[in-house]
């Protein structure tokens, strides 16, 4: 009987051992962070500067299209983008095309708008809540907000919300930012609002969506994207860097909140685990391929 080498054994390795190794390489860096450096990329920079260049009185429509299953990737982006916008004094209108998006939006607003910036609901920001209808809702708000959102998430009539007084349709907002984990999401915003109305659109999205969205970035239909957890970590870094280096418009509240922002950097904290896990997966792929070729060579021999 031919002797079985280590590389051949790898070919028939119990998959549960691989799961265990992945669990360990994710778990250990979370317990013992290494603080690997974060380098910003063009995609994130484009999204950041597109929002940063908006004037102080700009109104931004943020749409929440994600839920608990994609929260680790997109929630840190939602927090960072809101911190960025509120630190410039921008007004934010929030809506949700996913039912779970409502809870995600409430959670982010409670942290950033209420606890950190202490802003006034209805004046500085509003949460219009969830509406079923996917792209039909997007198409609908290009004609009328009131026809699709008669009340906000708290049940207040839209006509009684000050921030909505001069916002009749999607044409009246200066930027659309979609926090997207699938359908309906960023693509639908480009197709039914961004392109027809010529409103700039950007997105914070899951890693899986990146390949689908890149053609829209390349063509200029989207102003950069925040891609997955690495994108979120980059955006966190850029917001902190902006306030630290006093670049552009920054409110006094944001300067006071800087230590808080530095302390609560979720995406950056997670990036050590992400990087180590990626290295391990690359190693698995290399070993798996070597094992495959060794086995095939041996089979040819006999």
């Amino acid at each position, binding site marked *: 009987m031919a002797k079985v080498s280590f590389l051949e054994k790898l070919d028939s390795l119990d998959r549960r051992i691989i799961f265990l190794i992945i669990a360990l390489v994710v778990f250990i860096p979370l317990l013992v962070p290494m603080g690997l450096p974060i380098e910003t990329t063009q995609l994130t920079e484009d999204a950041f500067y597109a929002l940063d260049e908006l004037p102080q009185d700009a109104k931004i429509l943020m749409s929440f299209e994600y839920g608990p299953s994609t929260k680790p990737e997109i929630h840190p982006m939602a927090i960072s983008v809101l911190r960025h916008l509120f630190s410039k004094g921008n007004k934010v209108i929030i809506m949700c095309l996913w039912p779970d998006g409502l809870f995600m939006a409430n959670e982010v607003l409670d942290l950033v708008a209420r606890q950190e910036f202490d802003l006034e609901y209805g004046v500085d920001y509003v949460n219009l809540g969830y509406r079923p209808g996917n792209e039909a809702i997007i198409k609908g708000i290009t004609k009328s907000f009131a026809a699709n959102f008669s009340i906000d998430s708290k049940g207040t009539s839209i006509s009684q919300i000050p921030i909505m007084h001069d916002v009749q349709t999607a044409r009246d907002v200066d930027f659309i930012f979609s926090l997207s984990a699938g359908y309906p999401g960023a693509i639908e915003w480009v197709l039914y609002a961004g392109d027809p109305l010529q409103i700039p659109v950007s997105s914070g999205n899951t890693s899986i969506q990146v390949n689908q969205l890149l053609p829209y970035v390349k063509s200029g239909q989207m102003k950069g994207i925040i891609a*997955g957890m690495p994108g979120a970590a980059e955006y966190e870094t850029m917001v902190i860097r902006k306030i630290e280096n006093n670049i552009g418009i920054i409110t006094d509240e944001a300067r006071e909140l800087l230590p808080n922002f530095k302390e609560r950097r979720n995406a950056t904290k997670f990036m050590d685990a992400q990087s180590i896990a990626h290295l391990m997966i690359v190693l698995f792929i290399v070993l798996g391929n070597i094992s495959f070729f060794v086995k095939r060579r041996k089979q040819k021999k006999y």
Partner: protein
Amino acid sequence: MYIGILGAWIAVFLTLSILSYLYEDNVFYKFAEHIFVGVSAAHWASIAFWNQLQPNLFGRLWPQAEIAALDGFQKFWYGIYHGLHIIFGKIFPEATINGVLYRGIGDQPQNLTYLIAFVLGLFMLFRLIPKIGWLSRWSLAYVIGMAAGLRLYGYMSSDVIGQIHATMLPLWTGDVGSSINNIILIVGVLTGLFYFFFSVEHKGALKVVSRIGIYFLMIYFGASFGFAVMGRISLLIGRFNDLILYSGKEYGFATPILLVVMIVVLILTTRKKKSEEV
């Protein structure tokens, strides 16, 4: 406080139950899976009803109105509302403000064309009654027609025209780097499209073009796989972060206790299964 601790224990139990599938299919996983399906459906239905149907449909058919001021058809129409209020008081509320009786929902202008949507919605429910189930096809026809029309327009203008326009790039821009980028993009698009062109046999020079198309597609699939791995690892990090958070004293050591209990139960059930097989 106790609600928070209970919530943490439930979250940890459900997370570990789902992760236990990586070991093998088991009772914990099945339990968590069924809970997830049921809760998701109920959660979606409840949110959709109170956020959409009640304010946007019923609110437009019966916006809030002072009953004493109504006459003619409106009096009759709000009489129907009153009947619905008697049966479903929470969905169709009535209010007395300063001694004046109001019926209806919200302050949107009345729009009775929403009756068409209401009737089509009811038709969908007729699927539950086989004899008149065919009526639901009318509603489906509306949904399909509306969605197809809406999407066709979006895809044509943004995906087809927008993307073709974005591919019409100069091969020489004056800068070597961006010129190479443009050439790669154009070659990738043309060869990728040619790979899916089956009206001529791919042989000779055409085979080479088709092959290049495959290589571009393979690079795309490789990048997609990489992004998919990145996404899944991110989700795992999120769950582990919560498990670490809930392992502390303030949450009653939820993670370590439940982890040990589940491992013991899984080992015992596996042993039992093996002994039964023998």
